[in-house]
């Protein structure tokens, strides 16, 4: 459903993402993990067609993001970093706008609006302006707008940022409910959050994919070592990062 092949993005000659390759299959929830500036958002922006890769190929549902961006956007639900929303619009107006911009007919728009409002518990704010909503509601509104057209591929950039613990738990359950038949890629810099939601982790560091691992395998490794998941992931990052530094000069081995 999502395929990246040696994708590189340069900003003024400086790499933000370097030769990243991975795949996400239908039904998978995959988490991007890495510190700020690791390149998580850049990859999501490339997949959303917001920016174009400098080199490499990125495909969503079989469509190339550079060659056929409109086809990609049809199947994609995207919640950008910082969740930008039109502050002056009422919540229902904003969701109807998102539905129409995705080409939904009037009847289907009403149907999906009802689904979004009830699934994300937006009843109390649906007639309010976005600017009057709390941070938690705003995240849910952004998510509702990303899902209004029932997308097959979902990209969520730091979706739990600013949510309280109860809201985070509700968000996890909601994402799990969405997973069947869809490919979901979501970024965070909080390991516990990614581990709780995702079956697979992709670890990014300085724009490079340094490791990919199944959450269950990492958890088993942690249990075997009498350690915790955080330590196992940290040691993995350090080991791969160190090896990468030692091999600087272009060897791809460092990233395998």
């Amino acid at each position, binding site marked *: 459903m999502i395929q990246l092949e040696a994708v590189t993005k340069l900003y003024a000659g400086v790499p933000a993402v370097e030769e990243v390759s991975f795949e996400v299959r239908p039904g998978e929830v995959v988490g991007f993990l890495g510190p700020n500036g690791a390149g998580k958002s850049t990859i999501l*922006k490339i997949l*959303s*067609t*917001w*920016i*174009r890769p400098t080199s490499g190929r990125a495909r969503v549902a079989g469509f190339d993001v550079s060659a056929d961006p*409109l*086809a990609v*956007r*049809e*199947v*994609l639900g*995207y919640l*950008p970093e*910082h969740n*930008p*929303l*039109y*502050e*002056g*619009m009422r919540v229902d*107006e904003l969701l109807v*706008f*998102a539905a*129409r*911009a*995705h*080409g*939904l007919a009037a009847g289907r728009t009403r149907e999906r609006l009802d689904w979004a409002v009830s699934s994300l518990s937006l009843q109390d704010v649906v007639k309010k*302006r976005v600017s009057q909503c709390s941070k938690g509601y705003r995240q849910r509104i952004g998510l509702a*707008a990303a899902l209004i*057209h*029932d*997308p*097959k591929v979902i990209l969520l950039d730091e979706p739990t940022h600013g949510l309280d613990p109860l809201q985070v738990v509700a968000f996890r359950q909601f994402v799990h409910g969405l997973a069947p038949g869809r490919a979901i890629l979501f970024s965070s810099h909080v390991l516990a959050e990614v581990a709780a939601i995702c079956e697979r982790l992709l670890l990014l560091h300085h724009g490079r994919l340094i490791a990919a691992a199944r959450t269950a395998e990492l958890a088993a490794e942690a249990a075997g070592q009498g350690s915790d998941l955080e330590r196992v992931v940290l040691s993995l990052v350090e080991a791969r990062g160190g090896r990468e530094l030692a091999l600087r000069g272009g060897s791809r081995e460092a990233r395998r």
Partner: protein
Amino acid sequence: MSQRPAWMSGALTVARRELLAAFDSSVAYVYTLAFAWLSSSIFMNEFFLAGHAELTAYFERLPLLFCVFLPAITMRSWAEEKKTRTNEWLLTFPLRASAVVFGKFLGSFGLFGLFLLAGLPLVVMVYSLGEPDGGRLLTGFLGSALAGALLLSLGLFCSAQSADQIVAFVLTAVAGFFLVLTGDDRVVAVLDGLSPRLGLGSLLRDHLALTPRFDPFVAGRIELGALLYFVLGSAGLLALNARQVEADRD
């Protein structure tokens, strides 16, 4: 699953949102009332002095007023989207950049339409006081609509150059005044005097200025060259705007 909206349907969706944003805030009401008051009051003095049942003086003043009021409509179009990062959301919908740009143009033209409607009470007034030339009134409004379209297209393009609304306003106003004033005989004479060999003033008036193309409409004539100037100028600026939106993805 969604289905990609048709080009015009996508443009209308964006236009509707733009209009909604303008009317949800006080922007639309304030701009329209201010424009109606200023344009009418400037005209009324001349109207009573001249004593003719016509709106020539009204139309002649409009391009200069447009240079102040239309940048205020378009300044937020892209600059605000960039500042709040909503452009990342808007431009990841399955809409072509050209449809989004045209939608923004239609939205701002809808608001500008209210400016033109503000002239209708004057039409009623001249008809109640005399027998004005109806054709000339129509061409006057047509020319005003075309001049407005060109300045709105210019404003949208300028708005895409910055994330700051004030910068967008100033850029559009300066470019608009340049187009209008380079058609003024006094400015042409000064520029020609400064560059007698090149004849810069005449060059700009003959090839670029708005006023010489607007004046025939006010005089009751629809000239093909003038029509093409406004239509192609507006279309060209909108196309440049769409091209820039796409180029910003690199």
